[in-house]
């Protein structure tokens, strides 16, 4: 027993001693060490780690230390928040675009507005949605990290089995509804299409926007003081989904926003409204799939993009400068192409599509080409403002209640708009 206690104390001392060394970072012996929180999950962590090693090997004065930061992108936010509160923010972190404005409010971020238009940054070689989401309130808090968009991924086998022709890229929402209905087969547990109603209400809300925009609607007023999503356009948009969900019963209402994926890969979901992040999973699961742009009311196939950012935190001018050097290098087209090929992410810069190596990307990730092309249909960006997470929460709950048959589109959207107006106009207003 005594020996055990001694061994335990010795182990404890060792652990504590070993641990206290790791938190030091910064400038020592002229080198600058950067903390880089990537929020990547296993297969892609390796890709980014390799890129970081290349950078470290070619830049003797900067040492980038990459770590995942959190268990997943969603869990990273509480960690970054706690770290900012404690004054231990990393130098660079991957942050969801929807939180950009909140993070910018911290006063711990940088503003790159003055330098991004100088030569060498090729700022206009980022998609407009990316540019906007990284600049909440005109303050450029970092660099774009990821771009995506929504399209309709479909299971070719299920279409063939139901005797339904593959959807045309020029299809309309009416055709979409009819197709979903035809593919639905309760006896075989096959759903026509998915719609997430919980888990992540941003996911519930953002897929409402393409139909809103296509009908000429807007999310918020230009001054961000009033919710406009309860317009006629919004009601018409939500009514279509309401009919599909409560009349046709062709919609799988996904409560966690993650259940649709196994449903699709196991052949129980015919159409999967989702994005490029599914490509690695679908190919690994050997699903026979293809994808088309979102339907249109008439001819406008507008979609939505939810870009994410690399946010730079202000840990002193030397480290900010080094962070910019690193991200500038990471985002140069050649490195970006390596990243895209390795991870299956869409190219961040339009110019990458013209690089010779782009063909390799298309070959490695079959089916991703149309998604990259579909970025051209992401013409409008979601607003970036601190109240956005709560606005999205109100809207998402409204949409979910309609799809569950508990409210009419008009009533639910009006109520959500009213909540949003309170959130937008009362500073620090809780709830909503």
């Amino acid at each position, binding site marked *: 027993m005594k020996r*055990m206690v001694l061994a335990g104390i010795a*182990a404890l001392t060792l*652990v504590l001693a070993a641990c206290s060394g790791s938190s030091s970072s910064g400038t020592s012996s002229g080198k600058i060490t950067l903390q880089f929180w990537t929020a990547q999950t296993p297969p892609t962590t390796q890709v980014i780690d390799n890129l970081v090693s290349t950078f470290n090997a070619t830049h003797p004065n900067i040492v980038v230390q990459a770590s*995942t*930061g959190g*268990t997943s992108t969603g869990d990273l936010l509480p*960690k970054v928040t706690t770290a900012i509160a404690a004054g231990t923010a990393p130098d660079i972190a991957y942050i969801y675009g929807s939180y950009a404005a909140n993070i910018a409010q911290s006063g711990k971020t940088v503003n790159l507005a003055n330098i991004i238009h100088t030569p060498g940054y090729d700022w206009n070689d980022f998609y407009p949605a990316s540019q906007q989401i990284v600049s909440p309130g005109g303050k450029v808090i970092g660099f774009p990290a990821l771009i995506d968009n929504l399209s309709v991924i479909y299971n070719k086998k299920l279409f063939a089995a139901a005797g339904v022709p593959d959807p045309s890229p020029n299809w309309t929402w009416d055709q979409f509804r009819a197709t979903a209905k035809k593919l639905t087969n309760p006896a075989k547990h096959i759903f026509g299409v998915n719609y997430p109603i919980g888990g992540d209400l941003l996911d519930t809300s953002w897929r409402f926007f393409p139909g809103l925009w296509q009908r000429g609607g807007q999310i918020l007023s230009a001054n961000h003081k009033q919710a406009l999503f309860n317009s006629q356009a919004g009601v018409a948009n939500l009514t279509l989904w309401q009919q599909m969900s409560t009349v046709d019963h062709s919609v799988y209402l996904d409560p966690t926003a993650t259940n649709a994926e196994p449903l699709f890969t*196991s052949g129980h979901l015919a159409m999967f409204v989702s994005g490029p992040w599914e490509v690695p999973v679908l190919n690994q699961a050997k699903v026979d799939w293809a994808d088309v742009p979102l339907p249109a009311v008439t001819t406008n196939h507008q979609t939505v993009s939810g870009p994410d950012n690399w946010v730079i935190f202000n840990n002193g001018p030397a480290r900010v400068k080094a962070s910019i050097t690193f991200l500038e290098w990471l985002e140069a087209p050649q490195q970006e192409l390596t990243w895209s090929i390795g991870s299956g992410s869409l190219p961040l810069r339009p110019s990458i599509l013209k690089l010779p190596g782009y063909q390799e990307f298309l070959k490695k990730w079959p089916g991703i080409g149309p998604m990259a092309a579909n970025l051209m249909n992401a013409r409008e960006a979601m607003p970036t403002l601190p109240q956005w997470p709560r606005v999205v929460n109100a809207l998402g709950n409204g949409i979910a209640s309609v799809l569950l048959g508990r409210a009419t589109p008009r009533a639910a959207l009006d109520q959500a708009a009213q909540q949003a107006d309170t959130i937008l106009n009362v500073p620090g207003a809780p709830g909503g």
Partner: protein
Amino acid sequence: MTAQQTLRPVSEVDPALHRARIEEAEQRMRRRGWRRHLPQRGHLVLLPLSIIMVLPFVWMILTSFMTDTEVNSIPPSLWPHHLYTGGYSTVLASSDFPYWFLNSLIVSGAAVLAQLVLCSLAGYAFARIQFRGSTVMLILLLATALIPFQLTVIPTFVIFHDIGLINTLGALIVPQLTSALGIYLMYSFFQSFPRELEEAGRIDGCGRLQVFWKIVLPLARPALAALGIITFIYAWNDLFWPLIAITSSRTFTVQVGLTTFQGEHITHWSAIMAGTTLTTVPVLLVFLVGQRRFVQAITGAVKG
């Protein structure tokens, strides 16, 4: 408990007497006809109920040996067609699971050792030594159980950052060094501890620490075992604080690591269930081995 009932320390019970009591009770039961039928009927309720309680774990283990196709079929397969170990190899080979497991062992082990020392010292002091402020302190300690952790997590993080332990196992060990529950457990035990033994020691001229170390602790072994088991289980299962305090994968504990398997768009159920099984087995083992002490631990706290 009511005044006349106090916790009997196990060491005090004479096993022979105990056995005699049981035999006597059994004889009494045999004498009474009506009672004999009750137990049989009891099984009708108990058996199905107990099976329901363990079924999820059985299902977990079975699923960990199924392929993803088997898992994702409707209706689900009940039995793996062959023993598929791909889930386990995914967990063990392509994740940091071995690190997580080791980290959890270190944290839980350190917590057990520290609590054995600190909780028994404090519990003994509250039960046996009259000192200024002891009642107030004991009440304050117990009141901490009412504080929602969500309220204190940020300041706690700041404190641990200031002492330089964030993203180290130290951040996970320090809050587990002692606990209100553990102190209370030992306090209840020592309250019913026969005073005469200590007095004998004091007469022999031992100091308080000596009495505690040489006389009290050896006799408190059953309570210490109970404390150790309950501490291990609590420390092993802790999810929330490690989720916040640790940022690099190799410093994760198993519970935090397990949530990475649930990470977005990852649905390899065989791997998830293999991870869940590997995470659950250690506590199950500790529980099964030390079951009697575990039951004493949770009942001891109530009866104090």
